[in-house]
């Protein structure tokens, strides 16, 4: 009846059979996903269970693999920008930025100052939206059905704000090589100014009702402890690394754009467990609000697209480059190599979720299944970014 390691005629697919080769006698092999109510996306995790305990876990990827890197080889640089909006729908503007930043770095194009500020404001708004989505979905995983509704209420405001300049609600292709597509008009700036105190008024409520709730605390405290050395071994970045006490933020480590001028804190947590990662992300929402405020004050007048900006048929000059930005999930890296031809010779997209998920197998060993789900949620995974 149940498929366990004893069955001779294993009817599983390639990955289940591969996994079951080294399974113990009498253990239960269960597939979490790929269709799963825990709203991470299309992720499949094969677990070997001994009762309620997870002995071994293996994520199986590829269900959302669209081969963006091949698409880059048949497109010009400008044609590839919309792809970057689809790689990670949570923080699409950061991926936009990583790509156009790489192209600008390679070609030596300098972006006008106002464009830098517009990029920063919109990217940080997107980061808040991404964290809110994570927060609501994580609590849904843990069985609290209500916070996601409140998070989406806030998120709707942000999506409406970002729709004005970009034209999209989720998969943005707003940045251009040399600036952004359009300026933020007065209406948009006014809405942002109204949004900041609104969000600030909601955060204490979330803290009191959700973050300090004893049931939630019991679910995530002590769960999924990730040692800093494990982060180093797997290349985990972003809130996963910061939740383990590593003070690493690309905005400080490899400064880009106008971030050196902005005063903001990089939150870290010494807790190393899911609670630490949770706290880091909640504080990041507040810090993003600070960044947006300062940008609104400091933003100069001017163009938002450099004069003589590359046209759609522009060829990337010869060379290679690697550019990294801080996305909601961690360090987003884009590696571009060009031989001066019409299309991009090689584009490699380094997704933070990819490295973050690869440590799941290590971390979830020996935990209860409910804890494995809690750990998965605390890693803040967006599967399209992992599969590309």
């Amino acid at each position, binding site marked *: 009846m149940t498929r366990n390691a004893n069955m001779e005629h294993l009817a599983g697919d390639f990955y289940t059979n591969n996994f079951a080769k080294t399974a113990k006698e009498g253990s239960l092999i269960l597939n979490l996903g790929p269709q799963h109510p825990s709203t991470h996306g299309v992720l499949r995790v094969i677990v070997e269970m001994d009762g309620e305990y997870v002995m071994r876990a293996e994520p199986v990827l590829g269900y959302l693999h669209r081969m963006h890197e091949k698409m880059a080889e048949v497109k010009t640089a400008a044609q590839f920008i919309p792809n970057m909006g689809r790689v990670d729908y949570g923080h699409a503007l950061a991926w936009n930025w990583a790509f156009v930043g790489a192209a600008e770095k390679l070609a030596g194009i300098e972006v006008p100052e106002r464009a830098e500020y517009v990029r920063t404001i919109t990217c940080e708004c997107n980061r808040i939206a991404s964290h809110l989505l994570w927060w609501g979905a994580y609590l*849904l995983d843990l*069985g609290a059905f209500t916070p996601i509704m409140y998070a989406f209420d806030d998120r709707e405001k942000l999506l409406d704000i970002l729709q004005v300049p970009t034209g999209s609600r989720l998969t943005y292709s707003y940045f251009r090589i040399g600036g952004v597509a359009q300026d933020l008009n007065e209406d948009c700036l006014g809405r942002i100014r109204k949004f900041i105190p609104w969000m600030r008024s909601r955060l204490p409520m979330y803290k009191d009702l959700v973050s300090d709730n004893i049931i939630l605390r019991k*679910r995530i405290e002590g769960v999924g402890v990730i040692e800093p050395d494990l982060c180093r071994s797997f290349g985990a970045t972003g809130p996963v690394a910061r939740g383990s006490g590593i003070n690493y933020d690309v905005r400080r480590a490899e400064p880009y754009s106008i971030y050196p001028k902005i005063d903001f804190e990089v939150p870290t947590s010494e807790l190393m467990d899911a609670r630490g990662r949770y706290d880091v992300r909640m504080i990041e929402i507040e810090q993003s609000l600070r960044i947006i405020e300062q940008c609104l004050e400091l933003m100069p007048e001017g163009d938002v697209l450099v004069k003589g900006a590359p046209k759609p048929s522009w060829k990337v000059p010869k060379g290679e480059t690697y550019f990294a930005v801080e996305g909601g999930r961690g360090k987003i890296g884009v590696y571009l190599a060009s031989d001066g031809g019409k299309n991009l010779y090689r584009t490699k997209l380094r997704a933070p979720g990819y490295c973050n998920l690869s440590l799941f197998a290590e971390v979830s060993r020996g935990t*209860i299944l409910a804890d494995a789900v809690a750990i998965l949620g605390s890693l803040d995974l967006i599967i399209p970014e992992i599969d590309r």
Partner: protein
Amino acid sequence: MPAEFIRILIGLVAVAASVGLIGLVMVWVERKVAGHVQRRPGPYEVGPNGLLQPLADALKLVGKQLFMPDGADPILFWLAPVLSFLPVLLLFLPLPLGDGLFTMDVNLGLLLILAFSGLSVLSLLLGGWASNNKYGLLGAARAVAQSVAYEIPLLLSVLAVAFVSGSLDLATMVKEQGTWPWNWNIMTQPLAFLIYIVSALGETNRAPFDLPEAESELTAGFHTEYSGMGFGLFFLAEYANMVVVCSVATVLFLGGWHGPVLPGPVWFVLKVSLLMLLLVFFRWTYPRVRFDQLLNINWKWLLPLSVANLLFTAFFVKLAQYTIVR
């Protein structure tokens, strides 16, 4: 035909009808409360303020194709929802809705209810096992462990009240309480009330203890493979169980049908509704407790507390007996 038999028959018919009605009302209440807690209106399209929504849901469920997964045991698979639903009807019989208004005059009414509510565990187990589905199996295993665990503090807390009232007959227990809240058993047994409510949540698999049907982990636990009326029966049984549990709480702790001015049955229904609303609230407010934490709460907290409560109650009842005699 003996009057007793006719009485039970009428009662059963009334119970069967009202359980269906309760199901419909509870679906609407649950979804409306969920909506308003989540800052949205809930159902409002179908009928005025969404009142006909449960009817639409029921029609949908009835109209769905009944299929069985490959490899499932047909007898057990279809027995499980039926078994979850039928015993619940029996549990309503000893409940006194008003003065003398009960279907069955049994002087062990409490014992009857506790004994038959244990049958629901069997149906969960059968449903999960017969589904030929690993999620179902895990859900069933959890459900059994949880139900078996939470039976004990439930029993002990209820027993304490039985000590105070001096009888296991529900009608007598209500009569012992007075009209006003300060005469109710909740005043003399507050701890037992709290333990009872928590155990009731555990017994009926309601959030925050709804692990057997944990949507986000096990897809739907023991009723993953059921669709249409099979699922509908499980659903109805859950609501009916909730009503039974709240009714027992009302009878034992909140004075049953006692109350000023209004007639007995009205008060009874009001009190049960209040408790049901409380349970619905819990579901939409709290996250889910992890399984081992759930069992820990039971074995490490509820059990010792309920035993202590029972011992104290026994001690004071004996003391009262001797002092009164003197």
